[in-house]
């Protein structure tokens, strides 16, 4: 499959808007939250994005934003005549009141801990995640410290 064909396909897909090229081998799009799961299934099954590089959660006060970086490692997705590996950057907006989205950890196992981290540090809920626990902070930690409205308090605990 060619990179240009992929751009055409993406433009025609439901929920996709604002398609642009970040670099020669990176496409950036905005995606509707409601159609996200169907979109990611298609990306994995048909468009050769077999690796989920990163899931970033951003606190864009007031709303949250999730950024998915998907990449093709096998070289099936050709970028012109170059050896470059194709990448897709997907932005999804989430409401502050209910920051939740369908989990993609059943598609890419590598997304499992990225989602746990986004939950841990930013408080995003991933619906259908098999094991949504804190990963870096200890159990019982209150709050999500990467949120911009998180207030750091010094807790003095008795030993």
């Amino acid at each position, binding site marked *: 499959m060619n990179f240009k064909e992929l751009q055409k396909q993406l433009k025609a897909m439901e929920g996709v808007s604002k398609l642009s090229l970040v670099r020669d*081998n990176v496409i950036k799009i905005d995606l509707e939250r409601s159609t996200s799961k169907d979109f990611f299934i298609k990306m994995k099954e048909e468009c050769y994005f*077999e*690796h*989920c*590089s*990163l899931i*970033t959660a*951003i*606190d864009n006060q007031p709303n949250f934003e999730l*950024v998915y*970086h998907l*990449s093709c*490692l*096998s*070289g099936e997705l050709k970028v012109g005549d170059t*050896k*470059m*590996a194709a*990448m897709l*950057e997907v932005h999804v907006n989430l409401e502050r009141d209910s920051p939740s989205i369908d989990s993609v950890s059943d598609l*890419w*196992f*590598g*997304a*499992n*801990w*990225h989602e746990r*981290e986004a939950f841990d*540090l930013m408080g995003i809920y991933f619906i259908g995640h098999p094991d949504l626990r*804190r*990963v*870096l*902070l*200890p159990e019982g930690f209150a709050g999500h*410290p*990467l949120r911009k409205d998180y207030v750091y308090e010094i807790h003095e605990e008795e030993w």
Partner: protein
Amino acid sequence: MAEMWISMGPQHPMTHGLWTLKVKVDGETITDADPELGYLHRSVEKMGERRKYFMNTTLTDRLCYASSTTWTHNYVLSVEELMNVEVPTRAQYIRTIMLEIQRLASHLMWAGAYMPDLGHITGALYFWRDRELFLNLLELPSGSRLLYNYIRIGGVKRDLPDGFEQKTERILSLFEQRLDEYADLFENSKIFRMRTEDVGKFTASQAMNMGITGPNLRGCGVKHDLRVEDTYEIYEEVDWNVSTREAGPGYSDCFSRYMVRIDEMRESVKIIRDCFKKMPKGPTMSSRVPVRASGEAFRRTEDSRGEALMYLVGDGSDRPYRWKIKSPMFTTISACPHYLKGYKVADIPAIMGSIDICIGETDK
């Protein structure tokens, strides 16, 4: 026999840093595993939001003590992408040389740590003896042994010192003899091969899905290297090859993952030599380096352990609004239940050692 959970770590010789691996065993056979992280969490991302862009290079150095240049370089590259900074050609060559020396040091550190995991204490001494040579080389331009802070936004801190090329060449030719020595000591050793062959197998498609990248993926025979596929600095212009190995069609074991790193060290030597040949004269620092940035940018680089990615969002001030670090080991450790299942408890150090864990970058 009843199944039970055993907790290995956080202070276990296998863990290489602080983390806990809980394994569920049925007799001697592993049936499930549950890795736990967080013992070394220093909230680098949060700290970075409070510091100016150029200050963060001290934090990125401390992400991984075995491979600090590659992490600083990834951060600097992302910031340069965000700020549209042009880097002088000589600085790019110096960066590539430093990155490859760091890769050699990191792989030697890994190999030295891997041997005691397998009960081969002498191996550690051989590899770490040679790692010291490369640490000395890194110390010459940067002034410190482990945390260099040498690569800066817009170039490098200072030019290479006099006689650096000759010293490097001397060490590289010595090191090439040492690589042949390792072949006799380890690759041709029957005991080493018994411990590593057909242990910790995973296929290429599994690895991609689980988020395993870098040497561990190249050990499955996949020719994927971000130095070529998302090229940066001057890797395009230098003469070298991507090294791959496989244990069988499309899968890797501990031995192929060991061998791919040894091959990579030979390639690194080639890259460094070629860089010295082609390096032009000129400035080593960009004349214009902005302080503020807005927008968003990311770059991927080939870290010693796999795909490193930093995603930066700027809001027009002199500090990053959001800074996200992707560590290759974070996902590789998360997948360990998949590639541990079915092996014996005694294989755990051999398997977990072979994927080259660094907890500093993982816990951030």
